[in-house]
Protein backbone atom coordinates (compact mmCIF):
# COMPACT_ATOMS: atom_id res chain seq x y z
CA UNK A 1 0.00 0.00 0.00
CA UNK A 2 1.43 3.39 -0.88
CA UNK A 3 2.19 5.47 2.20
CA UNK A 4 3.49 8.52 0.39
CA UNK A 5 2.62 9.56 -3.17
CA UNK A 6 4.07 12.48 -5.03
CA UNK A 7 2.24 13.32 -8.24
CA UNK A 8 3.34 15.73 -10.94
CA UNK A 9 5.34 17.82 -8.50
CA UNK A 10 6.92 20.98 -9.86
CA UNK A 11 8.81 23.52 -7.82
CA UNK A 12 9.99 26.85 -9.09
CA UNK A 13 11.64 29.81 -7.48
CA UNK A 14 11.40 33.49 -8.10
CA UNK A 15 15.01 34.51 -8.12
CA UNK A 16 17.03 37.56 -8.78
CA UNK A 17 19.25 36.61 -11.66
CA UNK A 18 21.08 39.88 -11.75
CA UNK A 19 20.94 42.65 -9.20
CA UNK A 20 17.41 43.69 -10.11
CA UNK A 21 16.06 41.15 -12.60
CA UNK A 22 13.70 38.50 -11.33
CA UNK A 23 13.21 35.20 -13.11
CA UNK A 24 11.16 32.13 -12.36
CA UNK A 25 13.41 29.10 -12.29
CA UNK A 26 11.89 25.66 -12.50
CA UNK A 27 13.97 23.41 -10.29
CA UNK A 28 11.75 20.34 -10.17
CA UNK A 29 9.41 19.48 -13.02
CA UNK A 30 6.74 16.83 -13.43
CA UNK A 31 8.04 14.56 -10.72
CA UNK A 32 6.23 11.35 -9.72
CA UNK A 33 7.40 9.12 -6.89
CA UNK A 34 5.55 6.56 -4.80
CA UNK A 35 6.77 5.24 -1.49
CA UNK A 36 5.22 1.93 -0.38
CA UNK A 37 4.84 0.64 3.14
CA UNK A 38 7.78 -1.52 4.19
CA UNK A 39 9.89 -0.16 1.36
CA UNK A 40 13.12 1.70 1.10
CA UNK A 41 13.29 3.94 -1.91
CA UNK A 42 16.65 5.43 -2.69
CA UNK A 43 16.68 8.69 -4.59
CA UNK A 44 20.05 9.07 -6.28
CA UNK A 45 21.43 11.76 -8.52
CA UNK A 46 23.90 14.62 -8.76
CA UNK A 47 23.82 17.48 -6.30
CA UNK A 48 21.56 20.18 -7.66
CA UNK A 49 19.25 17.62 -9.23
CA UNK A 50 16.50 18.58 -6.79
CA UNK A 51 16.74 15.66 -4.40
CA UNK A 52 16.80 17.73 -1.22
CA UNK A 53 14.00 19.96 -2.48
CA UNK A 54 11.79 16.91 -2.88
CA UNK A 55 12.34 16.17 0.81
CA UNK A 56 11.63 19.75 1.76
CA UNK A 57 8.45 19.78 -0.33
CA UNK A 58 7.17 16.61 1.35
CA UNK A 59 7.77 18.14 4.78
CA UNK A 60 6.41 21.52 3.74
CA UNK A 61 9.57 23.42 4.60
CA UNK A 62 10.37 25.01 1.26
CA UNK A 63 11.65 28.57 1.46
CA UNK A 64 9.19 31.45 1.08
CA UNK A 65 9.99 32.24 -2.54
CA UNK A 66 9.19 28.72 -3.77
CA UNK A 67 6.14 28.06 -5.94
CA UNK A 68 4.86 24.51 -5.80
CA UNK A 69 2.35 22.63 -7.91
CA UNK A 70 1.17 19.02 -7.98
CA UNK A 71 -0.02 16.90 -5.08
CA UNK A 72 1.59 15.06 -2.21
CA UNK A 73 -0.48 12.38 -0.47
CA UNK A 74 0.19 10.71 2.86
CA UNK A 75 -1.82 7.48 3.40
CA UNK A 76 -4.10 8.58 0.57
CA UNK A 77 -4.81 11.98 2.08
CA UNK A 78 -3.73 15.06 0.14
CA UNK A 79 -1.43 17.13 2.28
CA UNK A 80 -2.05 20.76 3.07
CA UNK A 81 0.59 22.89 4.71
CA UNK A 82 -1.26 22.76 8.02
CA UNK A 83 -1.36 18.96 7.86
CA UNK A 84 2.29 18.85 6.90
CA UNK A 85 3.16 20.81 9.98
CA UNK A 86 1.26 18.33 12.16
CA UNK A 87 2.95 15.34 10.58
CA UNK A 88 6.41 16.81 10.58
CA UNK A 89 8.55 15.26 13.29
CA UNK A 90 5.79 12.91 14.45
CA UNK A 91 4.68 10.81 11.45
CA UNK A 92 7.24 11.99 8.93
CA UNK A 93 10.73 12.64 10.15
CA UNK A 94 13.61 14.25 8.31
CA UNK A 95 17.24 13.47 8.82
CA UNK A 96 18.72 16.67 7.44
CA UNK A 97 21.75 16.88 5.26
CA UNK A 98 23.62 19.47 7.25
CA UNK A 99 24.96 18.80 10.71
CA UNK A 100 24.30 22.48 11.38
CA UNK A 101 20.75 21.45 12.25
CA UNK A 102 21.98 20.41 15.69
CA UNK A 103 21.41 23.00 18.40
CA UNK A 104 24.93 24.20 19.22
CA UNK A 105 24.04 25.09 22.80
CA UNK A 106 22.39 21.84 23.88
CA UNK A 107 24.05 18.60 24.89
CA UNK A 108 23.41 16.07 22.13
CA UNK A 109 21.85 13.44 24.40
CA UNK A 110 19.22 15.92 25.47
CA UNK A 111 18.50 16.93 21.87
CA UNK A 112 17.88 13.33 20.87
CA UNK A 113 15.64 12.70 23.90
CA UNK A 114 13.54 15.72 23.00
CA UNK A 115 12.45 13.91 19.80
CA UNK A 116 11.16 10.80 21.57
CA UNK A 117 7.37 10.78 21.46
CA UNK A 118 6.65 7.64 23.47
CA UNK A 119 8.50 5.42 25.93
CA UNK A 120 11.36 6.43 28.17
CA UNK A 121 13.41 9.02 26.31
CA UNK A 122 16.64 8.21 28.14
CA UNK A 123 16.52 4.47 27.44
CA UNK A 124 15.50 5.07 23.83
CA UNK A 125 18.36 7.49 23.30
CA UNK A 126 20.94 5.22 24.97
CA UNK A 127 19.77 2.20 22.93
CA UNK A 128 20.04 4.09 19.67
CA UNK A 129 23.44 5.54 20.58
CA UNK A 130 24.67 2.04 21.33
CA UNK A 131 23.38 0.72 18.01
CA UNK A 132 25.18 3.52 16.20
CA UNK A 133 28.44 3.03 18.12
CA UNK A 134 28.28 6.34 19.93
CA UNK A 135 30.20 5.91 23.16
CA UNK A 136 28.58 6.47 26.51
CA UNK A 137 30.13 9.88 27.17
CA UNK A 138 28.92 11.30 23.86
CA UNK A 139 25.45 12.18 25.15
CA UNK A 140 27.03 14.81 27.40
CA UNK A 141 28.98 16.50 24.62
CA UNK A 142 28.02 19.62 22.71
CA UNK A 143 27.82 19.49 18.90
CA UNK A 144 31.12 21.36 18.39
CA UNK A 145 32.93 18.61 20.27
CA UNK A 146 31.73 15.93 17.87
CA UNK A 147 33.55 14.76 14.77
CA UNK A 148 31.60 15.03 11.51
CA UNK A 149 30.69 11.35 11.64
CA UNK A 150 29.50 11.52 15.21
CA UNK A 151 27.33 14.56 14.49
CA UNK A 152 25.73 12.71 11.61
CA UNK A 153 24.98 9.71 13.77
CA UNK A 154 23.40 12.02 16.32
CA UNK A 155 21.06 13.36 13.63
CA UNK A 156 20.24 9.79 12.68
CA UNK A 157 19.39 8.95 16.30
CA UNK A 158 17.02 11.89 16.48
CA UNK A 159 14.85 10.42 13.73
CA UNK A 160 15.13 6.89 15.04
CA UNK A 161 13.77 7.66 18.49
CA UNK A 162 10.90 9.73 17.09
CA UNK A 163 8.62 6.80 16.23
CA UNK A 164 7.82 8.19 12.76
CA UNK A 165 6.13 6.16 10.02
CA UNK A 166 8.19 7.69 7.24
CA UNK A 167 11.82 8.67 7.51
CA UNK A 168 13.30 10.89 4.88
CA UNK A 169 17.05 10.74 5.13
CA UNK A 170 18.85 13.44 3.19
CA UNK A 171 22.43 12.31 2.54
CA UNK A 172 22.85 10.48 5.84
CA UNK A 173 26.08 8.69 4.94
CA UNK A 174 28.86 11.01 3.73
CA UNK A 175 31.80 11.20 6.08
CA UNK A 176 30.83 8.06 7.97
CA UNK A 177 33.12 5.09 8.02
CA UNK A 178 31.86 1.84 6.49
CA UNK A 179 31.08 0.13 9.78
CA UNK A 180 28.77 2.93 10.87
CA UNK A 181 27.19 3.22 7.43
CA UNK A 182 26.41 -0.46 7.51
CA UNK A 183 24.89 -0.13 10.97
CA UNK A 184 22.83 2.92 10.02
CA UNK A 185 21.57 1.25 6.87
CA UNK A 186 20.71 -1.89 8.79
CA UNK A 187 18.65 0.29 11.08
CA UNK A 188 16.78 1.72 8.10
CA UNK A 189 16.08 -1.80 6.88
CA UNK A 190 14.76 -2.88 10.27
CA UNK A 191 12.67 0.25 10.41
CA UNK A 192 11.13 -0.44 7.00
CA UNK A 193 10.48 -4.07 7.88
CA UNK A 194 8.21 -2.89 10.69
CA UNK A 195 5.86 -1.56 8.00
CA UNK A 196 7.27 1.94 7.87
CA UNK A 197 8.97 3.48 4.86
CA UNK A 198 12.27 5.17 4.20
CA UNK A 199 13.16 7.58 1.46
CA UNK A 200 16.92 7.61 1.28
CA UNK A 201 18.21 10.60 -0.59
CA UNK A 202 21.81 10.05 -1.52
CA UNK A 203 24.42 10.25 -4.21
CA UNK A 204 26.11 7.18 -2.79
CA UNK A 205 24.61 4.51 -5.05
CA UNK A 206 26.70 1.79 -3.54
CA UNK A 207 25.27 2.04 -0.03
CA UNK A 208 21.80 2.65 -1.44
CA UNK A 209 22.03 -0.64 -3.32
CA UNK A 210 22.77 -2.63 -0.19
CA UNK A 211 19.42 -1.87 1.42
CA UNK A 212 17.00 -0.21 -0.99
CA UNK A 213 14.19 -1.96 -2.81
CA UNK A 214 13.85 0.58 -5.59
CA UNK A 215 16.08 3.30 -6.91
CA UNK A 216 14.82 6.55 -8.39
CA UNK A 217 17.46 8.21 -10.53
CA UNK A 218 17.25 12.02 -10.51
CA UNK A 219 18.71 14.35 -13.07
CA UNK A 220 18.18 18.10 -13.45
CA UNK A 221 15.02 18.15 -11.36
CA UNK A 222 13.11 15.10 -12.45
CA UNK A 223 13.15 11.32 -12.29
CA UNK A 224 14.89 9.74 -15.27
CA UNK A 225 14.22 6.22 -14.18
CA UNK A 226 12.74 4.18 -11.36
CA UNK A 227 14.25 0.74 -11.25
CA UNK A 228 14.23 -2.24 -8.93
CA UNK A 229 17.55 -2.58 -7.17
CA UNK A 230 18.41 -5.86 -8.94
CA UNK A 231 18.83 -3.99 -12.21
CA UNK A 232 21.99 -2.35 -10.95
CA UNK A 233 24.55 -4.98 -11.87
CA UNK A 234 27.15 -5.83 -14.49
CA UNK A 235 27.59 -3.03 -16.97
CA UNK A 236 24.09 -1.77 -16.25
CA UNK A 237 22.53 -3.63 -19.21
CA UNK A 238 19.23 -4.04 -17.34
CA UNK A 239 18.92 -0.30 -16.70
CA UNK A 240 16.50 1.71 -18.81
CA UNK A 241 17.97 5.19 -19.11
CA UNK A 242 21.36 6.15 -20.59
CA UNK A 243 21.97 8.48 -17.61
CA UNK A 244 21.45 5.66 -15.11
CA UNK A 245 23.89 3.58 -17.10
CA UNK A 246 26.45 6.38 -17.19
CA UNK A 247 26.08 6.91 -13.45
CA UNK A 248 26.49 3.23 -12.79
CA UNK A 249 29.56 2.90 -14.99
CA UNK A 250 31.21 5.91 -13.39
CA UNK A 251 31.43 4.19 -10.02
CA UNK A 252 34.98 3.36 -8.98
CA UNK A 253 34.17 -0.34 -8.73
CA UNK A 254 32.61 -0.45 -12.20
CA UNK A 255 34.32 1.42 -15.01
CA UNK A 256 35.22 4.69 -13.24
CA UNK A 257 34.42 6.08 -16.68
CA UNK A 258 33.20 9.66 -16.68
CA UNK A 259 31.03 11.09 -19.43
CA UNK A 260 31.84 14.69 -20.40
CA UNK A 261 29.80 17.76 -19.50
CA UNK A 262 27.79 18.65 -16.46
CA UNK A 263 24.19 18.78 -15.36
CA UNK A 264 22.42 21.83 -16.84
CA UNK A 265 21.66 24.76 -14.53
CA UNK A 266 17.99 25.27 -13.88
CA UNK A 267 17.99 28.58 -15.76
CA UNK A 268 19.41 26.93 -18.88
CA UNK A 269 17.56 23.66 -19.21
CA UNK A 270 17.54 22.12 -22.68
CA UNK A 271 14.12 22.23 -24.37
CA UNK A 272 13.79 18.50 -24.98
CA UNK A 273 15.09 15.60 -22.95
CA UNK A 274 17.13 17.06 -20.08
CA UNK A 275 19.93 14.58 -20.64
CA UNK A 276 20.06 14.89 -24.44
CA UNK A 277 23.13 17.21 -24.62
CA UNK A 278 25.31 14.61 -22.87
CA UNK A 279 23.56 11.49 -24.11
CA UNK A 280 25.51 9.03 -26.26
CA UNK A 281 22.38 7.81 -28.06
CA UNK A 282 20.60 11.14 -28.50
CA UNK A 283 18.84 11.76 -31.82
CA UNK A 284 17.31 15.02 -33.11
CA UNK A 285 13.94 13.82 -31.80
CA UNK A 286 15.31 13.97 -28.25
CA UNK A 287 15.79 17.71 -28.54
CA UNK A 288 12.17 18.38 -29.44
CA UNK A 289 10.04 17.55 -26.44
CA UNK A 290 10.40 16.35 -22.87
CA UNK A 291 9.78 12.61 -22.88
CA UNK A 292 6.95 11.42 -20.63
CA UNK A 293 7.55 8.87 -17.89
CA UNK A 294 6.51 5.45 -19.13
CA UNK A 295 6.33 1.93 -17.73
CA UNK A 296 9.04 -0.40 -18.95
CA UNK A 297 10.10 -3.82 -17.71
CA UNK A 298 8.87 -3.53 -14.13
CA UNK A 299 10.15 0.00 -13.80
CA UNK A 300 9.67 3.45 -15.27
CA UNK A 301 11.76 5.47 -17.67
CA UNK A 302 11.75 8.90 -19.25
CA UNK A 303 13.42 8.15 -22.58
CA UNK A 304 12.03 7.68 -26.05
CA UNK A 305 14.66 5.17 -27.16
CA UNK A 306 14.75 2.33 -24.68
CA UNK A 307 12.50 -0.65 -25.10
Amino acid at each position, binding site marked *: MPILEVEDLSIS*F*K*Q*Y*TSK*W*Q*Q*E*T*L*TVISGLDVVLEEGEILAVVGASGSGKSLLAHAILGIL*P*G*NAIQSGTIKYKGETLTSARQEELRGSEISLIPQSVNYLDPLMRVGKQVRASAKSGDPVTLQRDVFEQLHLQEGVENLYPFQLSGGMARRTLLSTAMVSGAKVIIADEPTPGLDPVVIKEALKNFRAFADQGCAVMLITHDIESALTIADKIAVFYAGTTMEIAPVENFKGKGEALRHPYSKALWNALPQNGFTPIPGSQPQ*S*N*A*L*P*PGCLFAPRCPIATPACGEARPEMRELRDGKVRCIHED
Partner: protein
Amino acid sequence: MRQAIQTDRLALNRRHWMIFFTIFAAVFLALVVIGGTFLNPERIATNFQEKNLAPSLHHLFGTDWLGRDMFSRTVMGLSLSIKVGLIGAIGSTFIAVSLGMIAATMGKAADRIVSWLIDLFLSVPHLVALILIAFTLGGGFKGVVFGLMLTHWPSLARVIRAEVMQVRSSEYVKISKRMGKSSVWIAAHHIFPHLLPQMIIGFLLLFPHVILHEAAVTFIGLGLSPHEPAIGVILSESMKYLSSGMWWLAFFPGLSLLLIVRIFDWVGENIRILADPTKAHE
Protein backbone atom coordinates in the same frame (compact mmCIF):
# COMPACT_ATOMS: atom_id res chain seq x y z
CA MET B 1 18.36 28.38 -24.81
CA ARG B 2 17.02 29.93 -21.64
CA GLN B 3 13.99 28.05 -20.44
CA ALA B 4 13.21 30.21 -17.48
CA ILE B 5 10.32 32.57 -17.84
CA GLN B 6 11.41 36.18 -17.83
CA THR B 7 9.11 38.24 -15.71
CA ASP B 8 7.65 41.26 -17.33
CA ARG B 9 10.37 43.88 -17.33
CA LEU B 10 7.90 46.63 -16.56
CA ALA B 11 6.49 44.93 -13.47
CA LEU B 12 8.23 46.10 -10.33
CA ASN B 13 9.41 43.40 -7.99
CA ARG B 14 9.87 43.93 -4.27
CA ARG B 15 13.47 44.95 -4.73
CA HIS B 16 12.53 47.60 -7.24
CA TRP B 17 10.02 49.03 -4.77
CA MET B 18 12.56 49.06 -2.00
CA ILE B 19 15.06 50.90 -4.14
CA PHE B 20 12.41 53.31 -5.32
CA PHE B 21 11.39 54.19 -1.77
CA THR B 22 14.94 54.32 -0.52
CA ILE B 23 15.84 56.84 -3.19
CA PHE B 24 12.70 58.77 -2.41
CA ALA B 25 13.57 58.80 1.30
CA ALA B 26 17.14 59.85 0.58
CA VAL B 27 15.94 62.75 -1.59
CA PHE B 28 13.51 63.80 1.11
CA LEU B 29 16.23 63.80 3.77
CA ALA B 30 18.58 65.70 1.48
CA LEU B 31 15.86 68.30 0.88
CA VAL B 32 15.42 68.77 4.63
CA VAL B 33 19.16 69.29 5.13
CA ILE B 34 19.47 71.64 2.16
CA GLY B 35 16.29 73.45 3.15
CA GLY B 36 17.52 73.93 6.70
CA THR B 37 20.86 75.23 5.52
CA PHE B 38 19.62 77.63 2.84
CA LEU B 39 16.28 78.73 4.26
CA ASN B 40 16.16 82.48 4.72
CA PRO B 41 17.00 83.23 8.40
CA GLU B 42 14.57 86.19 8.08
CA ARG B 43 11.76 83.72 8.35
CA ILE B 44 12.60 82.92 11.91
CA ALA B 45 13.21 86.49 12.89
CA THR B 46 10.98 87.89 15.61
CA ASN B 47 7.82 89.38 14.12
CA PHE B 48 5.23 90.39 16.70
CA GLN B 49 2.62 91.25 14.06
CA GLU B 50 2.30 87.56 13.22
CA LYS B 51 2.64 85.93 16.61
CA ASN B 52 0.64 82.93 17.86
CA LEU B 53 -0.95 82.15 14.47
CA ALA B 54 -2.52 78.74 13.94
CA PRO B 55 -1.32 76.73 10.90
CA SER B 56 -2.38 78.25 7.59
CA LEU B 57 -1.20 78.18 3.98
CA HIS B 58 1.16 81.03 4.68
CA HIS B 59 2.56 79.49 7.87
CA LEU B 60 2.21 75.76 7.35
CA PHE B 61 3.12 74.90 10.92
CA GLY B 62 1.81 78.17 12.43
CA THR B 63 3.94 80.70 14.31
CA ASP B 64 5.11 80.94 17.93
CA TRP B 65 4.83 83.62 20.65
CA LEU B 66 7.58 85.66 18.97
CA GLY B 67 5.98 85.40 15.54
CA ARG B 68 8.65 83.03 14.18
CA ASP B 69 7.56 80.70 11.36
CA MET B 70 7.38 77.24 12.88
CA PHE B 71 7.82 75.45 9.55
CA SER B 72 11.17 77.14 8.99
CA ARG B 73 12.22 76.52 12.57
CA THR B 74 11.27 72.87 12.30
CA VAL B 75 13.14 72.35 9.02
CA MET B 76 16.20 74.10 10.43
CA GLY B 77 15.94 72.06 13.60
CA LEU B 78 15.66 68.81 11.67
CA SER B 79 18.52 69.83 9.45
CA LEU B 80 20.66 70.46 12.50
CA SER B 81 19.51 67.15 14.01
CA ILE B 82 20.49 65.27 10.86
CA LYS B 83 23.91 66.93 10.82
CA VAL B 84 24.52 66.17 14.49
CA GLY B 85 23.19 62.67 13.87
CA LEU B 86 25.54 62.25 10.93
CA ILE B 87 28.62 63.23 12.93
CA GLY B 88 27.49 61.16 15.90
CA ALA B 89 26.72 58.09 13.78
CA ILE B 90 29.95 58.32 11.77
CA GLY B 91 31.95 58.68 14.99
CA SER B 92 30.14 55.78 16.63
CA THR B 93 30.54 53.54 13.58
CA PHE B 94 34.24 54.36 13.47
CA ILE B 95 34.68 53.50 17.15
CA ALA B 96 32.60 50.33 16.73
CA VAL B 97 34.61 49.11 13.73
CA SER B 98 37.96 49.88 15.34
CA LEU B 99 37.12 48.22 18.63
CA GLY B 100 35.39 45.29 16.92
CA MET B 101 38.47 44.66 14.77
CA ILE B 102 40.81 45.02 17.73
CA ALA B 103 38.77 42.57 19.77
CA ALA B 104 38.67 40.01 16.98
CA THR B 105 42.26 40.20 15.81
CA MET B 106 44.57 41.32 18.60
CA GLY B 107 44.43 38.41 20.95
CA LYS B 108 42.61 37.31 24.03
CA ALA B 109 43.57 40.21 26.29
CA ALA B 110 42.34 42.81 23.80
CA ASP B 111 39.15 40.86 23.30
CA ARG B 112 38.53 40.72 27.02
CA ILE B 113 39.08 44.45 27.46
CA VAL B 114 36.83 45.39 24.54
CA SER B 115 34.12 42.96 25.58
CA TRP B 116 34.22 44.39 29.07
CA LEU B 117 33.88 47.90 27.68
CA ILE B 118 30.95 46.83 25.52
CA ASP B 119 29.22 45.24 28.50
CA LEU B 120 29.91 48.29 30.62
CA PHE B 121 28.36 50.67 28.12
CA LEU B 122 25.42 48.40 27.44
CA SER B 123 24.67 48.07 31.14
CA VAL B 124 24.26 51.84 31.53
CA PRO B 125 21.24 53.35 29.74
CA HIS B 126 22.33 55.37 26.69
CA LEU B 127 20.74 58.51 27.91
CA VAL B 128 22.37 58.44 31.34
CA ALA B 129 25.85 57.90 29.90
CA LEU B 130 25.15 60.53 27.28
CA ILE B 131 24.10 63.11 29.86
CA LEU B 132 27.16 62.37 31.99
CA ILE B 133 29.56 62.73 29.08
CA ALA B 134 27.82 65.79 27.61
CA PHE B 135 27.79 67.46 31.01
CA THR B 136 31.46 66.63 31.69
CA LEU B 137 32.47 68.14 28.37
CA GLY B 138 30.59 71.34 29.18
CA GLY B 139 27.45 70.70 27.10
CA GLY B 140 26.79 72.57 23.84
CA PHE B 141 27.45 71.21 20.35
CA LYS B 142 30.80 69.67 21.27
CA GLY B 143 29.45 68.00 24.40
CA VAL B 144 26.48 66.48 22.61
CA VAL B 145 28.42 65.25 19.61
CA PHE B 146 31.13 63.59 21.71
CA GLY B 147 28.52 62.21 24.03
CA LEU B 148 26.65 60.68 21.11
CA MET B 149 29.78 59.21 19.55
CA LEU B 150 30.96 57.69 22.79
CA THR B 151 27.67 56.05 23.71
CA HIS B 152 26.27 54.52 20.54
CA TRP B 153 29.00 52.14 19.39
CA PRO B 154 28.67 49.05 21.63
CA SER B 155 26.04 46.96 19.84
CA LEU B 156 27.60 47.55 16.43
CA ALA B 157 31.05 46.77 17.86
CA ARG B 158 29.71 43.45 19.03
CA VAL B 159 28.32 42.65 15.56
CA ILE B 160 31.61 43.61 13.88
CA ARG B 161 33.63 41.55 16.34
CA ALA B 162 31.50 38.47 15.72
CA GLU B 163 31.62 38.95 11.95
CA VAL B 164 35.40 39.34 11.86
CA MET B 165 35.88 36.31 14.06
CA GLN B 166 33.60 34.25 11.87
CA VAL B 167 35.30 35.22 8.62
CA ARG B 168 38.75 34.78 10.15
CA SER B 169 37.97 31.23 11.18
CA SER B 170 36.42 30.28 7.86
CA GLU B 171 38.00 27.68 5.62
CA TYR B 172 38.48 30.08 2.75
CA VAL B 173 40.59 32.42 4.88
CA LYS B 174 42.73 29.53 6.11
CA ILE B 175 43.16 28.36 2.53
CA SER B 176 44.12 31.89 1.53
CA LYS B 177 46.90 31.85 4.15
CA ARG B 178 48.20 28.55 2.79
CA MET B 179 48.33 30.18 -0.64
CA GLY B 180 50.78 32.64 0.85
CA LYS B 181 48.49 35.63 1.33
CA SER B 182 49.47 38.11 4.05
CA SER B 183 47.23 39.13 6.95
CA VAL B 184 46.83 42.59 5.45
CA TRP B 185 45.81 41.15 2.08
CA ILE B 186 43.31 38.85 3.78
CA ALA B 187 41.88 41.70 5.84
CA ALA B 188 41.41 43.85 2.73
CA HIS B 189 40.11 41.17 0.36
CA HIS B 190 38.36 38.62 2.52
CA ILE B 191 37.27 40.34 5.72
CA PHE B 192 36.48 43.87 4.60
CA PRO B 193 33.90 42.91 1.94
CA HIS B 194 31.98 41.11 4.70
CA LEU B 195 32.15 44.11 7.03
CA LEU B 196 31.09 46.75 4.55
CA PRO B 197 27.38 45.90 4.52
CA GLN B 198 27.40 45.54 8.31
CA MET B 199 29.00 48.95 8.59
CA ILE B 200 26.55 50.66 6.27
CA ILE B 201 23.53 49.08 7.90
CA GLY B 202 24.90 49.66 11.39
CA PHE B 203 25.51 53.28 10.50
CA LEU B 204 22.00 53.77 9.14
CA LEU B 205 20.36 52.10 12.11
CA LEU B 206 22.44 54.17 14.55
CA PHE B 207 21.15 57.34 12.95
CA PRO B 208 17.62 57.37 14.40
CA HIS B 209 18.95 56.56 17.86
CA VAL B 210 21.48 59.34 17.71
CA ILE B 211 18.93 61.87 16.49
CA LEU B 212 16.38 60.97 19.15
CA HIS B 213 18.95 61.04 21.91
CA GLU B 214 20.28 64.37 20.75
CA ALA B 215 16.72 65.78 20.83
CA ALA B 216 16.14 64.25 24.25
CA VAL B 217 19.31 65.69 25.81
CA THR B 218 18.63 69.06 24.26
CA PHE B 219 15.04 68.90 25.48
CA ILE B 220 16.15 68.60 29.10
CA GLY B 221 18.55 71.48 28.62
CA LEU B 222 21.86 69.61 28.65
CA GLY B 223 22.45 69.54 24.93
CA LEU B 224 22.56 72.19 22.25
CA SER B 225 22.29 75.76 23.49
CA PRO B 226 18.83 77.38 23.52
CA HIS B 227 19.58 79.85 20.70
CA GLU B 228 20.25 77.01 18.21
CA PRO B 229 17.16 76.09 16.17
CA ALA B 230 17.19 72.51 17.49
CA ILE B 231 14.14 70.27 17.69
CA GLY B 232 14.83 69.58 21.35
CA VAL B 233 14.86 73.32 22.05
CA ILE B 234 11.63 73.88 20.09
CA LEU B 235 9.88 71.08 21.93
CA SER B 236 10.95 72.13 25.39
CA GLU B 237 10.01 75.78 24.77
CA SER B 238 6.62 74.86 23.39
CA MET B 239 5.78 72.91 26.54
CA LYS B 240 5.07 76.23 28.29
CA TYR B 241 2.51 77.21 25.64
CA LEU B 242 0.71 73.92 25.24
CA SER B 243 -1.72 74.72 28.05
CA SER B 244 -2.73 77.92 26.26
CA GLY B 245 -4.05 75.85 23.36
CA MET B 246 -1.14 76.39 20.90
CA TRP B 247 -0.96 72.72 20.04
CA TRP B 248 0.84 73.30 16.75
CA LEU B 249 4.02 74.40 18.51
CA ALA B 250 4.80 70.87 19.65
CA PHE B 251 2.69 68.80 17.30
CA PHE B 252 4.34 69.51 13.93
CA PRO B 253 7.96 69.56 15.11
CA GLY B 254 7.38 66.37 17.11
CA LEU B 255 5.68 64.65 14.18
CA SER B 256 8.43 65.72 11.80
CA LEU B 257 11.08 64.36 14.12
CA LEU B 258 9.22 61.07 14.33
CA LEU B 259 8.92 60.97 10.55
CA ILE B 260 12.63 61.55 9.98
CA VAL B 261 13.57 58.91 12.53
CA ARG B 262 11.16 56.38 11.02
CA ILE B 263 12.48 57.06 7.53
CA PHE B 264 16.05 56.33 8.59
CA ASP B 265 14.99 53.26 10.46
CA TRP B 266 13.05 52.03 7.47
CA VAL B 267 15.85 52.66 4.98
CA GLY B 268 18.28 50.85 7.27
CA GLU B 269 15.96 47.85 7.58
CA ASN B 270 15.41 47.71 3.83
CA ILE B 271 19.08 47.74 3.06
CA ARG B 272 19.62 45.07 5.67
CA ILE B 273 17.07 42.84 3.93
CA LEU B 274 18.63 43.54 0.54
CA ALA B 275 22.07 42.66 1.86
CA ASP B 276 20.95 39.52 3.67
CA PRO B 277 21.58 36.55 1.37
CA THR B 278 19.02 34.36 3.14
CA LYS B 279 16.30 36.85 2.29
CA ALA B 280 17.83 37.71 -1.03
CA HIS B 281 15.11 36.26 -3.20
CA GLU B 282 12.00 37.49 -1.42
